[in-house]
C-alpha cells in the first residue's frame, strides 16, 4: 500500500513538472516574453531591466529553473492590470469559486445519485425515461446557453430571481443549477449503468433469497457497490466541473477564478493567467491523487 501511495505521489509531482514545463515553453513560444509587457510608455531602460530580471541572457534550462523556483514559492510575477502580485489577485477569487462549486456539487449529487438509482431500478418506466432525458440534455446542452436561457426565463421574463453576481442565497440558485445540471448528467449515466450491473450480481440475488427488504437491497447493498465506477471517473468528472465553472462564472458575472482567467485573457494579463492555470492544475492533480488513493482503500483489488 505504502509503495502504491508513494508511486502515485511521484506520478503526481511528475505531472506538475510536465505542466510547468508546458506553461513555461508557452511563455517563451511567442518569442521574447517581454513583448507581453510592452506598452507605449516602455523605455529602453525598462526593457533592459526586465531582461535582467527574467534572466533572458541565460540558457533556457536555467531560465526555467528560475521561473519554476519562483512559481513554487507562489511568485508568478505582477498582474499587468492591477499592478499587484498575481497570486494575491488569485487568492481573492478562491472563496467565490469554492462556494458556487460546493452548491453545484451538492445539487449534482443530490439529483444524479437518487435519479440514477431510480432509473436503473425502474428500468423502462417513466422514472427511467425522465432520468435519461435529464442526462441526455445535460450532456448535449452548452452550459453557457443553459445559463443564459435560465436568466432569460427566470430573471428577465418572470422576474423571480436575480441574474447572477454575488449576493444573498437567491443569487446562488441559477448559477448552481446551471453548473449542477451539466455535472449531474455524466454522473447519472454512470450511476445508472453501475446499479444495473450490480443488481444483476450474485450477492444481490443472495440478499433477495435471504429475504432482505427491497429498499435495503437497493439503497444499501446495491448503491454502495455501484458507487465505485463513478469514483473511478471522478477525475474526468472533476475536469468537466472546472470547465463548467469557468463558463458558468463568465455567464453569471460570478467573481471567481474562472471569471478571473477569462478577464486575464481579455486583458492580456499573462502572469495572472499562468497563476490561475497553475493553481487549478494543482488542485486538479491533488484531487486525482486523493481519489486514486481513496479508491485503492475502498477496493482492495486495485493495484497498479
Amino acid at each position, binding site marked *: 500500500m505504502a509503495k502504491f501511495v508513494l508511486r502515485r505521489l511521484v506520478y503526481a509531482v511528475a505531472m506538475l513538472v510536465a505542466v510547468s514545463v508546458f506553461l513555461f515553453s508557452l511563455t517563451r513560444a511567442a518569442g521574447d516574453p517581454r513583448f507581453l509587457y510592452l506598452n507605449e510608455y516602455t523605455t529602453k531602460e525598462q526593457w533592459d531591466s526586465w531582461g535582467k530580471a527574467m534572466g533572458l541572457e541565460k540558457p533556457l534550462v536555467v531560465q526555467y529553473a528560475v521561473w519554476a523556483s519562483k512559481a513554487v514559492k507562489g511568485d508568478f510575477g505582477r498582474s499587468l492590470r492591477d499592478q499587484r502580485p498575481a497570486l494575491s489577485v488569485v487568492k481573492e477569487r478562491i472563496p467565490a469559486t469554492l462556494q458556487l462549486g460546493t452548491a453545484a456539487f451538492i445539487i449534482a449529487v443530490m439529483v444524479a445519485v437518487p435519479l440514477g438509482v431510480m432509473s436503473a431500478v425502474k428500468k423502462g418506466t417513466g422514472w427511467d425515461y425522465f432520468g435519461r432525458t435529464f442526462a*441526455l440534455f445535460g*450532456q448535449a446542452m452548452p452550459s453557457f*446557453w443553459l445559463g*443564459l436561457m435560465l436568466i432569460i426565463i427566470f430573471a428577465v421574463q418572470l422576474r423571480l430571481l436575480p441574474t447572477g453576481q454575488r449576493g444573498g442565497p437567491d443569487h446562488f440558485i441559477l448559477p448552481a443549477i446551471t453548473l449542477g445540471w451539466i455535472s449531474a448528467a455524466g454522473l447519472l449515466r454512470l450511476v445508472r449503468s453501475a446499479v444495473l450491473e450490480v443488481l444483476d450480481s450474485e450477492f444481490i440475488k443472495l440478499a433477495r433469497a435471504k429475504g432482505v427488504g427491497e429498499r435495503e437491497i437497493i439503497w444499501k447493498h446495491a448503491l454502495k457497490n455501484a458507487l465505485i465506477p463513478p469514483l473511478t471517473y471522478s477525475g474526468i468528472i472533476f475536469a468537466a466541473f472546472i470547465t463548467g465553472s469557468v463558463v458558468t462564472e463568465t455567464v453569471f458575472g460570478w467573481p471567481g477564478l474562472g471569471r478571473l482567467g477569462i478577464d486575464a485573457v481579455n486583458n492580456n494579463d499573462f502572469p495572472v493567467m499562468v497563476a490561475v492555470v497553475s493553481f487549478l*492544475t494543482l488542485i486538479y492533480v491533488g484531487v486525482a491523487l486523493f481519489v486514486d488513493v481513496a479508491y485503492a482503500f475502498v477496493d482492495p483489488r486495485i493495484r497498479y
Partner: protein
Amino acid sequence: MAERITKRALPRAGAAQAGAVVYPALARRTGVRKWWAEFRRWPVVPVALVVLLLVTAVFSPLLAPHDPTKGSLRDRNIPPAWSAEGTSKHLLGTDPLGRDLLSRVIYGSRISLMVAMVVLTLGAIGGTTLGLISGWFGGQVDEVAMRFVDFTFAIPFILVALVVVIVLGQSLAVIIALLVVFSWNSFARQVRGETLKLKTEAYVDIARIAGASTPHILWRHLLPGVVNTVLVLTSLKVGSLILTESVLSFLGVGVPPPTPAWGLMVSDGRDYIDTAWWVTAFPGGAILLTVLAFNFLGDWLRDHFDPRLRQSM
C-alpha cells in the same frame, strides 16, 4: 439419470419448435404497430437530423436567405417572424448588428461540422497510429506513450486553450490544432487495448512466421481489427467536440468573428438578453439539437457494433 434428463429436455425442445405458434401476437403485428416497432429499432430521427445538418452545411449559400456577415443597423434586433413586430423577411429575426439570424445559424453549421470533421480525422489517425505502435511494441515505447496520454487527460483543457490562444493568437488553425492535441488521446488508449488483445491471436503469429514485415502486420492484420472501435469512438466524440468548440468560441478564444460560429453568436446575444432573447436562443438551440442527434447516433452505433466500449465511456 439419463432418463430424467431426456424427460426434462423434451418439453423444452417442443416449446422451441413451436416458437412461431407461441407468439402469434408478434406475427400478427401489422400496419401501424409493425411500422412503429421497426421505426424504434433504427435511429431514424437522429439520422434524419444529421443528414439535414450535412445538407444545410454543404448547401448553405443556396439555403440562406441573406448574407450571414452583412447587415444594416437599421434592421437591428428584429424579433422572429411569428411575433408582433417580426417580418417575414427575417424568419428568426436579426442580431444586434442587423444580420439575418437564420442565415447565420445556417452558415454556423458549416463551422461546427468542419471543425469536428477535421479534428476527428486528424485525431483518429494520430491516435490510432500511436495506439497500434504502443500496443505492438510494448515495453518502454508503450510506457512513454501511455504516460503522455495520461498527461493529456490530466490537464484541464479549457485553461490550456486560453493560455495558448493568448500566446499564439486567435485563429481557426490554432483552435483546430488545440482540439486535435486533446482528442487523439482516447483513440490511442482504446486502440492500444485492442492491439494488445489482437496481437496474441494465431493469425498474427502465422503472419509473422510467414515473414510479414512489422508495418505490413500493423497495416493489413491489426488495423482492420480496430477500425470498428475507431469508427464508433469517432461517432461518440462528435457531440462533445462540437460542444467544446462552441465553448471556446463563446469565451472569445475560438473561431474569430465575424465568422458565424454558433458559440460566438450566443455570446453576441449576451448583452441583449433582456430585449432580444432570440439572438441567444436560436444558435444555442442549434448546438443542442446537433449534439443530441450525434450523441444518440453514437450511442446507437456503439450498442450495435462495439458494446464493449460501454464500460470505458
